[in-house]
Structure formats: C-alpha cells, structure tokens
C-alpha cells in the first residue's frame, strides 16, 4: 500500500512539472493563439542557465532559481518579439513552423557547445520519511515549489489589473481587444510569465535529472496534450490535466511497463482528438 502512495506522490511530482509547463503553454495558446512549440526548448535553456549560474557562477540554488526565472522571462519576450510578432495575422501554421526552426536552432546550439549531459548538485540532500513513504527531499521541493508558483500565479491573475486583463484575454480574445488592451504589451507579458514558469519547472527538476539538449522535446508534446485536453486558455484545465497525466504516467510505469510511458500520453491525445477534433473542451477552433 505504501508503494502505491509512494508512486502517487511521484506522480504528483511528475505532474508538477507538467503543470508548470502546460500553464505557460495554455496562456500563450489561449491569449495569443500561438502554437508555441518551442516552449519545451525554453525549458531546456532554463536548465542549462541554472547550471551556468549555479555551477559556473557559484550562486546558491535558491537565488539561482530566481535569476533563471527572470532571465528566461526576458528570453521569452525576445522570442515573442523576434519570431512570433512578425507572423501575427498569418495562418496559424506559420507560427508553428517558425517554432520548429527555433527548436532546431536551440537544440543544435546547445548540443554543439555542450553535447554531454550535465548535472547540478542538489540543494537539499537526503530523503524524507513519513507515513511509511520514502521520498527524496528534492521531489518534495518540486511539489511544494510548483504549488507555490501556482498560487503566486493565481494571486497575480486575480489581484492585479494586469492579471485580470490576462484572464480576460485568455477567455475571450476578441472581446478584450475591443476594450482596447495593448496587444504587444500583453503578448510580451504572457510570454514572460509562461517562460518563467517553464524555467522554474526546469530548475526544480534539474538536481534530479540529467541536463541534456533533448530535455524539452517530449515534454512539449505532453504539454500540448494537456492543453488540448484541458482546454486552450484554461488554467484550471492545465493544472488538473498536468497532475492527472503525471499520476497516470507514474502508475503506468510502476504497474505496467516503463518502456512505452511516453507513448501513453500521445495515444490518449490521438484518441481524444479522434473523437472530438476540437479538444475535450471544444470552443476555440
């Protein structure tokens, strides 16, 4: 029984990453109608940034985390400005194609400079034991870190003017435009927030994983699965979907097999889109 709970918690930890990445993606998709396929690679850059700041810059983990989030917020805004803004108004698929170019660019760049996987030291060593469950401290950090981010995001959305504007746009882009919200500013802000969240996800998992150039590739597809299923622009959907996928995957690995774990998520997506081509929560075409 404790094995089950152990797996459940691992699933929640796994889900935490998915949630953070999917939240950013759903905001971008919902507000800006951009298929930001390169989001996973921004996540990857975040992990490498962490290495640079922590290992080369000898800054402690917690501070590094914040620096990386800030740096990637800027990075996200750059991507928006240079890659997506020129394509505004063009068919949707063009943005997707540009994202593919960006992915190739980033992945090759990183692989060329540093082909071998990297590791960063854990900020908190050891395992925690409670209620018959053993868990690495870092996993707990991930879970709570993610919850903190989600809470902060919600506060921002509900309590600030900018945040309310973002929520409005996520739910009804045309209506918000009519009210006179500055598209460029909103675009930059959305990308900043989304990429910072992805950076956080990367920084949280980095001590537990290998930092490698292809880190973001499979993650982005899963994030898309979550966003499409949970609803474009729906933060709730991203949160619920993310945790759900994490738990289901952890269970699948534990009880079925680990070989095809990625396939699981994609199979679900194909199945769902086959039945409802506009995603589970339909709406936006």
């Amino acid at each position, binding site marked *: 029984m404790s094995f089950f709970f152990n797996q459940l918690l691992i699933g929640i930890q796994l889900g935490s990453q998915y949630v953070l990445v999917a939240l950013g993606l759903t905001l971008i998709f919902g507000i800006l109608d951009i298929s930001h396929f390169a989001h996973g690679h921004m996540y990857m850059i975040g992990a490498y940034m962490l290495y640079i700041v922590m290992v080369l810059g000898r800054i402690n983990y917690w501070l590094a985390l914040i620096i990386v989030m800030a740096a990637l917020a800027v990075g996200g805004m750059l991507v928006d400005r240079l890659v997506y803004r020129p394509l505004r108004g063009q068919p949707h698929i*063009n943005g997707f194609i540009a994202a593919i*170019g960006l992915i190739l660019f980033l992945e090759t760049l990183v692989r060329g400079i540093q082909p071998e996987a990297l590791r960063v030291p854990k900020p908190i060593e050891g395992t925690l034991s409670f209620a018959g469950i053993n868990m690495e401290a870092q996993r707990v950090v991930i879970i709570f870190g993610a919850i903190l981010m989600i809470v902060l995001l919600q506060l921002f959305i509900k309590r600030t003017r900018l945040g309310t504007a973002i929520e409005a746009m996520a739910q009804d882009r045309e209506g918000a435009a009519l009210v006179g919200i500055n598209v460029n500013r909103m675009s930059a802000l959305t990308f900043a927030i989304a990429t910072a969240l992805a950076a956080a996800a990367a920084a949280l998992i980095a001590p537990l994983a290998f930092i490698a150039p292809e880190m973001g590739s499979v993650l982005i597809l899963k994030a898309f699965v979550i966003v499409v299923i949970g609803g474009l622009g729906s933060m709730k959907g991203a949160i619920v979907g993310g945790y759900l996928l994490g738990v289901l995957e952890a269970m699948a690995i534990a009880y079925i097999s680990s070989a095809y774990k990625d396939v699981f998520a994609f199979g679900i997506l194909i199945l769902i889109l086959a039945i409802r081509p506009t995603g589970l929560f339909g709406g936006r075409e």
Partner: protein
Amino acid sequence: MAEKVKAAGFGKAGFYLLVLAAAVLIGLPQLKIIRKGTLNVLTLALIWAIATMSLNLVLGYTGQASLAHGAFLGIGAYMFGIMTHRVGMNFWLSLLVACLMTAIIGLLIGLPSLRTKGPYFAIVTLCFNVIVFEVFKNWTWLSGGYQGQKVPRPTFLTERWARYYFALACLVLVILVVRQITKSLLGSSFIAIRSNENLAEALGIKTFSTKLFSLTISCFIVGLAGSLLALYNGFVDYTITNYLYSFYILIYLLIGGAATLSGPVVGTVGLYWLLWLIESWVGEFRYLMFGLLLIVVIIYFPRGVVGGLKQFWDWLRRQYHGRVQTEGEGA
C-alpha cells in the same frame, strides 16, 4: 484565352530550365571531376527529394501539415527490408508492397487524425511519429534493435552510378505523377481545400475523403523514398523513423518552395548538398543554420526560393506587358 484554361504547361522559360536541369542531372556522373563522395551525396539528395515531393502533395497542395512523414519514411524502409530479406520477395514486388503498406498505414492514421485542422493535425501526426519511433526502438523483433534490418541489394544496383540513375528515374517518375495530379481536376480539389476548406465543402467537394486520399498518395510516395534509402544503405535501423526527419523534410519543402514542382527538388538537393559542404567547417552546428533558415524563410519568404522566383517572374512579365500596352496606345 482558351489556351489558358487548358492544362497549361510549365511555360516557355520553365520548360527550357527543365531541359537544362535534366541535362545536368543526367550527364553528371559522366563528368570525370565528380568524385565518388559527391555522387553518393547527390544520390541521397535525390532520394530525399522524393520524400519532400510527397510532403509537397499533402502540405503544399492540400494544406495539411503532416509531421509524421519521418515515421512513414521509416515504415516504407522497413517494409522493403523485411520483404526482400526476411520474406525473400522479389525486388520489384517488394518495392510495390512497401509503398502500398505505407499508403495503407497512412490511410489508417488519416482516418482519426484528419478530422483535426491546422496545428492540431501537425501535433497529432508528430505524436504518431514519436509513437512509431518508440515502438521501433523497443520492439526488436520488428526492427532488429540496434543491429537493425539488413537490406540486400539486387545485382543491377551494385554500381554507384546505377544507384544514382535509379534514384533519378524514381524522382522523375514521382515528379510526373505529382504534376499530373496537380494539373488535373483531382488537383483542383486539393488546392481548393488548401485555399479555403469551408468554401470547398460548400461547393460540393468531399473534404474529408479528399484529404484522406491526398495523404494516402503522399504516403505511397514517401514509402518509395524510404525503400530507396534502405536500398542505398543496405541496412536500416529504428533511427530511420526519427521525427527529426519530419522536420527536415518540412524545411527542404518550405525553403525550396511549397506548391511548386521544382521547389522540393531545389530545396532538398540544395540544402542537402549545402549541409554536406559545410559539415567539415561547422560540424554539428550545420543544423543550427537549418533552424535559422526556416525561421527567416517562413517570416520573410514564405513561398521559398522557387515560389519567390516565380512571383518575381510574374511581376516582371506584368511590367513588360503593361509597357507594350501603353506604347501601342501612344501610336
């Protein structure tokens, strides 16, 4: 005016260019200065051009962005290898079966996924590609694992130049097939769907089955490309189903010029050769150029090299005609 409405050919300038290109490609291996390495690269480039042409049919002409063509390429390759080596089927029959199998799988994949539009379709097909990759990687009975699948070579293809001409012949055949389709009434259904799917449906075109048909034909062709790749290398392993190939084919197509007949060939041969050239200078970073190029092209030159040239040519022609007009009136 009636001539315009008839299936127009390439136009005079295009025709001469075509003859020139044909002469070059056919005469190439005979030139003494061509090294073995170059011939190899060119042969591979021609094979990849076939794959790009297949994507051109379904994306350039029908507007559906499939990112699964890497998987289909691999499926074709494996089918061919398995048929010739494990089943012991004759060469030509194996080729046909490989293409047919790939087309059938394309059909089966299209059934659920073509109900989705635009980027959703791209994502679904990409997911499919990843699934296929994982399956081939893990299911060693099918794929031969790390050792892969041996692909025997028929005697008439032992010579390097024989393989070159065979690939060239296949490419020419594929170009003719695609040309015939795009100039036909079937082709008009395809471009209608690409241009304005809702209007096409309102005009009585069965959009779903037409898209499905386009994907199926496209998969038949990319199955051929996969088989040729397997043949060329004498061997395939699971890496041939890599989804990165879906991206590369997309890049060759967009940079060369989608919805043109020569664009895919120009793009593939040009880029493939370019990659090979700069490999010694920049090594792994060459794909970086790919990525940048794709971004620049999609933003500033979405019609690619050939498309852009055509546009420029048309603009020139209109300027010229305009001038003739006014001169006539002046007199």
